[in-house]
């Protein structure tokens, strides 16, 4: 759980905020609100009851604040636009309408701070809160600095952070200075700067910088989660006196952050169906909204030859749980259910050690954990430390079996020492290892030699790099080195693209867009922030620098793009031959196939087409194939032959595309659809149409697939219904 927060935003709504300055085409208010809306919408997004905020308008026409009501002077033109509380979308919308510039300028910014301060004091009492006041102004309206010391003291006493962000305020650190600054503004800036300096916890900055930093993604902090708290053992302490046991704690080091999840919703059928507002979570109630969530309902069916369609519904209550063993279903009674679960006891025990050099990180199967000694346990601290150092000195990893708690699946993990050489943090890291079943053995030819059919090894071949290419590649890789490409603040070379600078573009693109949409539903989507795509291309400077090496690589590599036409099958294929090179077609000789049988349809169809000399032969083959498809559908008991019919259709479609006669297929399919839908193929065959033909992408051949087709994409889509 994150700490409670109470923040009050003071927004200058004075007349001058409506003007545009310093070459911007948006008003000072809009410019400043980019920062404020971003902050507020982040709070809204969090939907936390304990993250509260209020908003005070400065230089408003009206005056509405507690101090003024009490009759205090100097609090004119300050209005509380929203009291402190959790923020919802409804309030966000209301707030949007009240953020408008006025025609006044009589409000005093320091008085505004006092109003905010009192609001926070009243709201948070003495409870534990992160208290903060954020003032956004262009500093044009006069400020009375008489009481600023008292205000600073009160802020400090109440432990409130004061952040002042000024539109076009000077900031030497950031490197911004406004030319032709009015005297009044310069004085006000000075007053506010002094006030901030007197605060224990204060920040004074210019809006340019604040807006610029909005693009830098904010990472959601997550509290460490303790996944394991117990012994790390070497040997079995229950059986052997020699066994070693160190009390450790394990946390996550990496955990994949998810992108914001999308929900499935429907537009509410009855407007204002808020009576059925659904509870999203404990904290928030769904407002009176345009959309409502979709629920999933499951129904269960079993095969029943007597039922219409061969299937019938069964009640969920009548079902038992089970597992599949091949195609046999094995039902389990409730009491037997856990029997297939391996009984395990919480444990973390070492199997043995391997040298660093015998492990390659691509075997890592998932997220990393971090292991430290139990706190305030001297034996564990010293023991684990010695273990870490010994592994490090011997350049060894440990392989361990990890059972997080009783009953969970055992995992094998690799323990890697981190002896605090690069950081101040001594620990073990662990990564999950694959089991035997997690490996699929795929065969690939070697990359550094070519084996001939007869088993000879060839070292020079078009598939192998020449010495020139090897050299060019080596130079290129060295020229494109990133390890010292960046320059740090002190001008020293540092690593380019370290992990802490790479933000997940998907997550932040989505979050930024959602926040923007929430604040302004009508605004178009802005392009992704530059920082998110920073690493999608090599840095230009590096490419510039490595230009000679890249040119040399291009020359040595001689890569040629295969023309789009040749990638396809072309009109006529080389006859395929077995390893021996035997010409099967000549074997057939006289008995060349001209008719297609049901049993051997696909090979015969392909063979006829492969040797077809004229269009009539192709047409005849397509016709025969079509009849076979129809027959299969017609004779099919329920869906028995559908897959086979679909496979024949698929082959027919593919072959006719490559022979550039899509019309034959399209004509046949049009007729087939009619036959299926009219029921003339012995009953209801719609499943064949929907599941196998439409679902199997066996629709009409479009112009995209074959240039000579007369069917457009839209027509094909309309047909596939």
């Amino acid at each position: 759980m994150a700490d409670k927060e109470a923040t009050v935003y003071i927004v200058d709504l004075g007349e001058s905020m409506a003007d545009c300055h310093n070459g911007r085409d948006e008003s000072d208010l809009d410019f400043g609100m980019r920062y404020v809306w971003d902050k507020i919408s982040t709070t809204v997004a969090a939907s936390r009851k304990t993250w509260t905020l209020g908003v005070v308008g400065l230089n408003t026409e009206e005056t509405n604040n507690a101090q003024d009501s009490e009759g205090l002077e100097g609090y004119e033109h300050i209005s509380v636009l929203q009291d402190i509380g959790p923020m919802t979308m409804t309030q966000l919308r209301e707030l949007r309408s009240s953020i408008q510039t006025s025609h006044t300028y009589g409000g005093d910014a320091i008085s505004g701070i006092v109003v905010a301060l009192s609001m926070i004091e009243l709201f948070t009492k003495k409870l534990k809160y992160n208290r903060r006041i954020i003032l956004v102004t262009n500093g044009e309206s006069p400020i009375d600095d008489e009481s600023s010391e008292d205000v600073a003291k009160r802020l400090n006493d109440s432990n409130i952070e004061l952040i002042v962000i000024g539109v076009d305020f000077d900031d030497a650190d950031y490197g911004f200075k406004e030319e032709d600054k009015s005297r009044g503004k310069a004085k006000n800036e000075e007053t506010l700067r002094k006030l901030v300096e007197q605060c224990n916890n204060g920040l004074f900055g210019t809006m340019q910088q604040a807006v610029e930093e909005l693009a830098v993604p904010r990472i959601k902090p997550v509290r460490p989660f303790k996944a394991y708290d117990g012994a790390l053992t070497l040997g079995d302490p229950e059986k052997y006196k020699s066994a070693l046991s160190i009390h450790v704690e394990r946390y996550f080091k990496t955990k994949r952050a998810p992108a914001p999840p999308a929900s499935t919703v429907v537009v509410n059928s009855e407007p204002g169906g808020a009576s059925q507002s659904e509870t999203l979570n404990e904290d928030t109630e769904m407002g009176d909204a345009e959309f409502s969530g979709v629920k999933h309902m499951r129904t269960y069916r079993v095969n029943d030859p007597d039922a219409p369609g061969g299937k019938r519904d069964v009640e969920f209550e009548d079902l038992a749980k089970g597992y599949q063993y091949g195609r046999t279903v094995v039902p389990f009674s409730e009491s037997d259910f856990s029997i297939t679960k391996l009984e395990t006891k919480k444990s973390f025990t070492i199997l043995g050690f391997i040298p660093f050099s015998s492990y390659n990180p691509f075997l890592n199967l998932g997220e990393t954990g971090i292991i430290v000694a139990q706190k305030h346990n001297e034996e564990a601290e010293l023991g684990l430390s010695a273990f870490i150092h010994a592994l490090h000195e011997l350049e060894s990893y440990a392989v361990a079996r990890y059972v997080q708690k009783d009953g969970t699946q055992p995992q094998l993990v690799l323990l890697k020492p981190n002896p605090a050489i690069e950081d101040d943090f001594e620990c073990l890291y662990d990564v999950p290892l694959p089991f035997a079943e997690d490996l699929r053995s795929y065969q690939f030819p070697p990359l550094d030699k070519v084996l001939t059919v007869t088993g000879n090894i060839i070292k020079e071949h078009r598939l192998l790099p020449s010495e020139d290419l090897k050299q060019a590649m080596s130079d290129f890789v060295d020229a494109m080195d990133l390890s010292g490409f960046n320059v740090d603040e002190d001008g020293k070379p540092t690593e380019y693209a370290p992990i802490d600078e790479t933000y997940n573009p998907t997550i932040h693109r989505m979050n930024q867009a959602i926040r923007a949409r929430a604040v302004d539903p009508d605004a178009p989507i802005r392009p992704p922030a530059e920082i998110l795509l920073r690493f999608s291309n090599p840095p230009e400077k590096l490419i510039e620098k490595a230009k000679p090496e890249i040119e040399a690589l291009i020359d040595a590599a001689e890569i040629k793009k295969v023309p789009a036409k040749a990638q396809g099958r072309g009109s006529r294929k080389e006859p395929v031959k077995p390893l021996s090179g035997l010409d099967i077609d000549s074997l057939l000789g006289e008995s060349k196939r001209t008719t297609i049988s049901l049993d051997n349809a696909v090979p015969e169809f392909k063979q006829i087409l492969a040797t077809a000399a004229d269009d009539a032969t192709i047409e005849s083959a397509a016709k025969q194939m079509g009849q076979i498809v129809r027959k299969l559908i017609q004779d099919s008991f329920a869906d028995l032959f559908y897959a086979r019919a679909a496979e024949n259709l698929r082959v027919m479609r593919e072959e006719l595309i490559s022979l550039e006669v899509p019309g034959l297929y399209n004509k046949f399919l049009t007729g087939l659809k009619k036959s299926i839908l009219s029921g003339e193929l012995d009953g209801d065959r719609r499943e064949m149409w929907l599941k196998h033909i439409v679902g199997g992408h066996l629709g009409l051949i479009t112009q995209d697939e074959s240039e000579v087709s007369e069917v457009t994409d839209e027509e094909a889509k309309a047909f596939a219904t």
Partner: protein
Amino acid sequence: MAWGGDDDRRLDADEGEEELDEADYKTQKDAVLFAIDVSSSMLQQPPATDKKKADKDSAIAAALKCAYQFMQQRIIAQPKDMMGILLFGTEKSKFRDEVGGRSSGYPHCYLFTDLDVPAAEDVKSLKALVEEGEDPDEVLVPAKEPASMANVLFCANQVFTTNAANFGSRRLFIITDNDAPHGKDKAAKSAAAVRAKDLYDLGVVIELFPLSYEGKAFDVSKFYDDIIYRDPATEAGSSDEVKTSKSGDGLSLLNSLISNINSKQTPKRAYFSNLHFELAPNVTISVKGYMPLHRQQPARTCYVWLGGEQAQLAQSETIKVDSATRTVDKSEVKKAYKFGGEYIHFKPEEAASLKNLGGKVLRVIGFKPRSLLPTWASVKKSIFIFPSEEQFVGSTRVFSALWQKLLDSDKVGIAWFVARENANPIMVAIIPSRAMDDETSETPYLPAGLWLYPLPFADDVRNVDLSAPPRPADELTDKMREIVQNLQLPKAMYNPLKYPNPSLQWHYKVLQAMALDEDVPDALDDATIPKYKQIDKRVGGYLAEWKEALTEKAGGLMKSRAMKREAEDEDVSRPLAKRTKPAAPKKAAGGHMSNAQLKAALEQETLKKMTVAELKDVLASKGVSAVGKKAELVEKLEQWIEENV
């Protein structure tokens, strides 16, 4: 499905937009038909010897054992894939329903297990044949005349055509010791070649597993070169060559065959093809991607309907309903994001543009020494890539040059990677793997190529501030070194093949027993459990010494800490002295309380004044379970103090 069980399955009812992973080719199913030659030479028992690793099985027994193992593995790893067993050269013939010697269309072909997802009965009858040698139907009797190979191949053709019509992968595994089934009979050979071409056109791949024993070589050119086709797309030098299984070199015929068949267990399926791999502007090659690593999980539970004669799987269908339980049509459904208690919605074209952060590509942004990869930078499995000449001629040589350079200089590429259109971009390190026959290979069980190793984003890194201070190495470290050095894993490497997943194995072992109506086994041979006895034997002495040294050192540290704390306490206690009431145990440092302080607190009965968090801290630091209500915690602590202080 072979690829079932996604890593990132989430049980959310409200499905999030899950990352496209393997869904793309889930329909790609595999069907394998074993065609096993039943001849008198196949049935010949090997000569009896005393040698340990000598063959004990006849060739046919070895082949059937392989098939049995294959079937079991398939049920675990590829539960949606099919398999069948066709015996040929048998005296009896059987094809589906037609039984008997004469009436069968395929004489001397015996379809022992029809092509299908294996059922318990299939496993049972195969098991009986393999393990008990039970052959009630006398199927393992060779015919007087050999079977026509044309017939065998056409029989296989029919089996595939009817049972696995639209499977993406269909393979015929021929196991035989006869390299010339038709001798010099040209007509019979031609007929077989024609039927083999049919299979090729049907899309069935023939994998030959020749057996050779007693020094007799298997000559594929006599017959099988006319039968076997290679995909013209695969380049010269492909490793798809036929490997003959034989005994020798300490390997029995059975083991040799098992290893050859295992290498073809899973059909090679690409995870993506024709991905553009941009090394630099204007240096683009094409690669294919594979997933040789994938966490295999036990199958999920299903619902079973017991109302019929046989237990039957209930197929579930989901329908979407709105808040008024009205069924919602697919066209009505929209995607929206929860935000501040409401839904934020984007138009489909807007959503598409939000998803689009650039098309599918693997683009190098530069290279780094491998040492710059932080040891903790791991998030998910890596993907294997291999060049393909289909789009760019020269891809293979450029890829090979890069692979060799990365190996030679111990560097990795850093790249931006989008696996498919609309897939989420990630950053990857490109890491080379050595050739399998390279003695320095870390992974001799995996092919040579490049791996895309996903790097965590800044968002994925947890900030763990546990402030464990670094300590210098000392004699404890030196002693520990002896232990580490003496407990190396076999061959000083982690070989996953030696460690089957115990949960998975147990799950299917029990399931198999239940499905076959056998006794449930009572224990599992779990290779992941350390060899405790060996550990004790090898390093027991060192461990004992080390522990002694540790106790002593820890005692010293404890004392020095206590002293330091007391000194601090004195400092702190002065301002606290102003308080009139007896000081509750020092707050901020629950776990830091010295034993003396605890004892004082017990005597003054101020333990109750500690907060639950403080109590838990103290208890945990003393190694006492910190679970329970406050009163229980206080009681536990009191007890501990009484016993230990």
